[in-house]
Structure formats: C-alpha cells, structure tokens
C-alpha cells in the first residue's frame, strides 16, 4: 500500500475539485487567490497598496518554510492537472530549473517599477481563467444541449423536463456563458499541457514563478528527505518528476514537491521524509548565481517598454467594469483571473484580446450587445481578488458611470422611420429615466422620440442590449 501517494493524490483531487466548485458556485471566488503569495504580494508592491486578504498569502510562506514545496505537489490545481494528464508522460532529466528564477526575478523587478505582470505566469490564475472561461462554459453547454436533445428530439417531456428545469436554476445556471475570444485562453493552457511531451512537470520545474517563489523558501525548509539505506539502483533519481535527486542521493530541497514517489520506488525502502535530528549541512548549489542575478536586473530594464502601453489612449475605447477609474491602475491591479467574467449575471463582461495593447490582454470589458451591466448588482467588485474592480456598496455602485449612451438618429426607429419604439426608455434602470422623449404628432399619431440626459446616464448598456434594430443598434455606449 502506497499510503502516502494515495494521500497525495486524494489531496490533489480534493483541492482541484474545491477549486472548480468555488469557481462554479461563484460565491467566494475572491478567496481563492488570497492564498497566492505571488499575486498578492507583487500586486501590492506594484500598486504600492496592501490588497485585502494579503495576510492569507503571507501565511503560506511559513508553512512552506516548514514543509517545503508541499503546495506544488499537494494543492496546486495546475500541478494536479499536469500530473493527471502526465501519468503516461516520459520523465527526462532536465537542467533548466534556473529559468523559473529568471521569470520570477523579472516579475519582482517589474513590480518595483510599478508594472505587474505576475498574471502572465501565475498557475492559479491560468487555471482559474481556463476553468471559468473554457471549462465551465463548454461543460454546461454540452450538458444543456444533451438535455435539449433528449427532451425535444426524443420527446421526453414531463419528468425529465422538470428535472432539467431544476438543474437549470441550480447547477447548470440559467444562462450558458459564452466568451467569443476564449480560444486564446484555451490555447495558452494547452501549450502548458503540451510541455508534457517534453517531460513530466515541465512547467513546474522550468517555468512556474510561484514555484520559484516557494523554492527560494523551501531551500531552508525543515522537513527533509533522508536516505538511510541505498543499493545505488538510481530508480528514485530516474523517476523523480522534478529531477530533484542528485547522483550522490542527496537532493535539491528547493525542487522537491513532496510527491512521495521516491519512498516507494526504493527497492530496499531506504528513503523517508522526516524532521531533522540534528542540524544538517546545506546541500546543493545556490539556485541562482550572483552574476546571473545582476544580469537579470540589467535585462529587466529592457522590459520597461511594457509600461504604459495599455494606458495610452488606446484603452479608452473600452467600457471597463463599474468603479474602474484609472486605466493604468486597473491594468496593473487586474490579474486576469476571470472571476468577474464568471460572476457577471448577464455574461456582458468579456476578456479583451488586443484592443488595449499587449499589456491589456484578458482584462475584462463590457460588451453591451452580449450583456449589460445589471443596475442592482455589484458582484464583479465583490469577487475581484486584487480590488482592481473596487468593492462598492450597492448604493455607491449605482452611481458609477461606465460610459455614456448616445443615439444614432439614422438608425433609431422613431427618429428615422417615425415608428413607435422607445424600448431604451422602457429598460433604463435609473429611477428618473436617463432617456427622455420628445413628443411629436405625425399623421395623427403621437410618436415619442428618445434622447439621452447625460447627467443621469450611468452607461450600464441595457439600452444598447435591448435596442431592437439589427445588425447595428441605434443606441450605443461610448466609454
């Protein structure tokens, strides 16, 4: 019985399921990233603020000091997916583990220059984005279609239909979410999975900056591996998914994710993990040399070109979520986790691709034709882990202006064709109506022609969403 491996697998499945469950239920999604020190600390550094919940992520650091990189092997959802997919993958020794420190170093240095790019490589964010924007929408869509097929085409109305309706209001969701540009997030995730063709846990060994952050602490961790008896068969070394074991049976503590494989690979059962009896000598080389570190700092300046790309003019084309004031601050704080897009009840928040420059990729914007900003809702601010979308009370959120509506009189039915319509006025959620009307009598009929009162309009976009003209809407929100 490989008890420890079973325990590790159980823990991986448990945390991955928990991760998906939390994203699915949309209740406490902000709390997910509170245990992620990379995101929490670096966003705080780059924005010079203490983001809420940072204390939880700092608590992860002493735990790592005790146990080592247990997070990577036992908790990380990305690690679990990579392990699950990579069961049959080949394991090859690699000597590239230094790269992840460079990546981590880049991110830290840039954070001091007020540029936050932790989101590009943070594994929790990548997995959350994949689950929210790809996995959940396609899974629910497939389930929905299967039910519709059974009900409609095979005529199983009555009990099955009631069951389907119950599912719809609980698990499945009333709305099947749709993100037109989510293929890019999918592609990014697939590339990371495709590294499995090179070796097991390639991502964790070579690229992951969160892993690097934990590795630096894990180097000094208390829990350690001991080899009491050895037949020099090298099985543990060959099988180690992190290539953490050295030729002389010592190991790189900063690389070990405590997967426990080496305990059971050993034919003489000579390996075990335990607390130190007496202070052991530090083993292994430094993770990154002084020369490399200086090189890293110097080369980081080259990346400063990243800065302000999103903030310059181009970003103003987009309607940002409610309460977002400065484009620069928003792009810096936003970690692109996709939480806001997952909870937006109308599906209106969508990931940006390149509209606001390279540094603005995957940040949310409102697409009124897909969904508007629900007036009585402040969910996006509530779930944002870094307060890039501020957390406002409902009353304060209602005052936030996302943009301003304007009417294209060439398309608008009352203006261009003297037809009665004013659907925009009907739906306007502001209690005194930001859309007013002129009355004109044409051919004995009273026609009401809408206009926008700019002082009242909050730019929620419901008018654009409900406007019946096609293909273009007669009323649009400009940011």
């Amino acid at each position, binding site marked *: 019985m490989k008890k420890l491996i079973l325990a590790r697998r159980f823990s991986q499945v448990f945390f991955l399921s928990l991760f998906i469950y939390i994203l699915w239920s949309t209740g406490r999604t902000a709390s997910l990233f509170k245990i992620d020190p990379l995101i929490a600390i670096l966003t705080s550094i780059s924005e010079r603020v203490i983001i809420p919940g940072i204390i939880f992520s700092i608590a992860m650091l002493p735990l790592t000091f005790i146990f080592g990189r247990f997070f990577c092997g036992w908790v990380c959802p990305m690690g679990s997916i990579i392990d699950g997919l990579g069961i049959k993958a080949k394991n090859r020794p690699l000597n590239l583990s230094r790269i992840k420190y460079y990546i981590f170093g880049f991110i830290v240095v840039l954070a001091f220059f007020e540029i936050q790019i932790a989101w590009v490589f943070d594994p929790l964010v990548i997995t959350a984005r994949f689950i929210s924007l790809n996995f959940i929408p396609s899974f629910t869509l497939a389930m929905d279609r299967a039910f519709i097929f059974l*009900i409609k085409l095979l005529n199983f109305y009555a009990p099955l239909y009631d069951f389907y*309706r119950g599912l719809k209001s609980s698990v499945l969701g009333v709305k099947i979410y749709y993100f037109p540009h989510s293929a890019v997030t999918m592609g990014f995730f697939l590339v990371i999975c495709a590294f499995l063709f090179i070796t097991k846990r390639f991502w964790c060994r070579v690229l992951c900056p969160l892993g690097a952050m934990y590795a630096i602490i894990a180097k000094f961790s208390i829990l350690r591996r001991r080899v009491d008896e050895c037949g020099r068969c090298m099985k543990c070394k060959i099988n180690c998914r992190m290539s953490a074991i050295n030729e002389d049976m010592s190991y790189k503590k900063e690389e070990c994710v405590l997967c426990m494989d080496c305990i059971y690979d050993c034919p003489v059962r000579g390996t075990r993990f335990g607390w130190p009896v007496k202070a052991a000598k530090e083993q292994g080389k430094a993770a990154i040399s002084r020369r490399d570190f200086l090189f890293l700092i110097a080369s980081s300046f080259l990346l400063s070109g990243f800065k302000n790309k999103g903030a310059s003019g181009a970003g103003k084309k987009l309607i940002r979520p409610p309460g977002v004031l400065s484009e620069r601050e928003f792009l810096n704080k936003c970690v692109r986790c996709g939480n806001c897009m997952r909870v937006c009840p109308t599906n209106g928040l969508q990931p940006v691709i390149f509209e606001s420059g390279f540094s603005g990729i995957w940040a949310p914007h409102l697409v009124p034709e897909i969904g508007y900003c629900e*007036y009585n*809702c402040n969910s996006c601010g509530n779930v944002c882990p870094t307060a890039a979308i501020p957390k406002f009370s409902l009353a304060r959120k209602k005052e936030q202006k996302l943009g301003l509506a304007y009417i294209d009189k060439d398309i608008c039915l009352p203006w261009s064709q003297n037809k009665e319509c*004013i659907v925009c*006025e009907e739906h306007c959620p502001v209690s005194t109506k930001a859309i007013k009307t002129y009355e004109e009598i044409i051919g004995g009929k009273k026609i009401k022609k809408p206009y926008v009162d700019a002082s009242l309009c909050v730019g929620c976009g419901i008018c654009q969403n409900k406007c019946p003209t096609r293909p273009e809407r007669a009323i649009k929100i400009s940011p």
Partner: protein
Amino acid sequence: MKGSVFERLPNKKISRKGFVKLCGIGMASLALDNALLKFAFGRDDVSTGRVVKRIKGLHDLVAADGIDPYAITVKAVEAMGGMGRFVKKNSVVLIKPNIGWDRSPEQAGNTNPYVVGALVDMCFKAGAKRVNIFDNTCNDSKRCYENSGIEKIAKEKGANVYFVDDWNVVKAKFSYKSPMEGWPIYRDALECDTFINVPVLKHHGLTGLTLSMKNLMGICSGNRGLIHFDIGAKLAHLTDFIKPDLTVIDAYRVLKRNGPTGGDLADVFDMKTIIAGTDPVLCDAYAAKLMDKDPLSISGISQGVKYNIGSADIAKADVLIINA
C-alpha cells in the same frame, strides 16, 4: 466468475466494412426511432392559439379594496364565483405574473408576491394538478425571480416556478392577417387548461400604462423590442391568441411615474385594490379609469375594442366593488 467484464467480452475483431455497416445501421435505426417517436408523441411547432372556453364569472368585473393583498385577492376571486369555476380538477394552470424587473416588492415593478401566492393556493384548493409560473424577464431572470419575492412564495405553496427556454416555443398562426404572425410563443403558455394573467398596474413610457394585455409580452420569445412598433394591434392579437381565462390586476402598490422599471419609492403609492375579471379589455379599461386615464387613449384597449376582443364600456358592465 473470473476477470473483469472486459475480459469476458468476446474477443472479436471487426473489419472496416463491418464497422461502417454497423454505424450505418445504428444511425438509421436511431433516425427511424426518432421519426416514430415524433409521429407518436410529436408536438406541432405551429399553434393557432388556445381553445376558447368562455367561462363567465358571477360579475363582469370585481374590484376589491383592503389592507391585506392576499385576503383581497381571495375576496375578489370568490366574488367572481370562486376559483372552482375556472380551474377544473386535475387540470394544469398557468399563472403569468409580471416578474420582468430586478426590483423588490415595495418598488412595485413586479406583481405583488402575495397576490400570486393567493392565486396558487386557490388553484390547488380547486383541485389543480399543477400550477406553472414563468415570465420572460427583462433584467437577469434569476435576480428578478429572487428579488421580486414571487419565486419563494409560489414555490412554498407548491407551484412550479421555472425559467423560460427559448428552444421550447411554437409559432403563432392567425386566421386573419396579423403583425404577430409567426412570432415565437413559449409552448407552456398554450398547453395549459387555465390561463390566469396577473399583471401589476403601473406607468409605462410608451403605452401610458402597462396592463394585462401588455403583460402577455412575457410569454413571447424573440426580439421583443419589435413588438413596440404598432403595439396596440399586436397586443390585441396576442390577447386574442391566448384568450386568458381570468385576469387579476394587482393595483395594490402602483408605480405612477418612471415606469415600467421605477426604483424610487417616492413614485409608488398604495391603491390597495385588486381587480378580477374574465374580459381582459374590460379589466384594463377599469384599471385605466382608476388611474384617471381615458381607457381609449391606451392603444391596447382601443385596438382590443376595434378587433372585438372585449369591451371597454365600464358604464354598461356589471361591476361589483367590495370594501374589505
């Protein structure tokens, strides 16, 4: 019993030709099954509307005033002759309230939940097998259902409250020329034995007031904004298509300005009245009168009279007013 199921399966290889054949036979039999099932239980995708029953109440219209919305709803329906008159044993009832907006009951954007609750109770007392409640909402449907309070109360009383499915519709077919021809209507609105329309009386920018005929827009799918053009005739034809058996107008809390969304409690006043009747046009006309408006100035009512769907002549009608 040795080995797993897979080991016990016959180890037979299949040729490419055999595989193609097998797939073909499988698909053909599925298609045939499908066709047979459709033939046996298939439902039309086109409907000519509900079958008329024309059940008359004891009066043409009853208006009940009082403090408790639940009690006056019961009083109004009892004065019409009781729910047993409209709901037969083991029948399926559809109650269509207005749940269009993400508003609380106090803001009067939706039908009062207690009015809906009273109707559900009465339907089950009259022996209904099933009571369905739905609305095609304007705001996010989950938020509307929850914040209106209707979902909670109706579910407690045993009704089926569910969200609409845009794939489960039929196309409307009229015997006369109609602008609503071919409009997708939710199937459940037609496949019910009794249709009870429960609108809330409130202000509306385009039609002046939103009433029982306008409330029927909630059973329409599709790009509903287009109904607003020539809305009077469209609502009249829609009412004729559905022919509601009973209309109960909630005028308990009334939104007098900035409708149909409202949101400001200063725009709401308490009228504390429930109107019940079998003629949708007459009910609308009476409600318009309560709001000091000329019934014929509201396009739905004037077009309803024009197409002979009901009468708007309150003076001639048998109206009973109850003060509880």
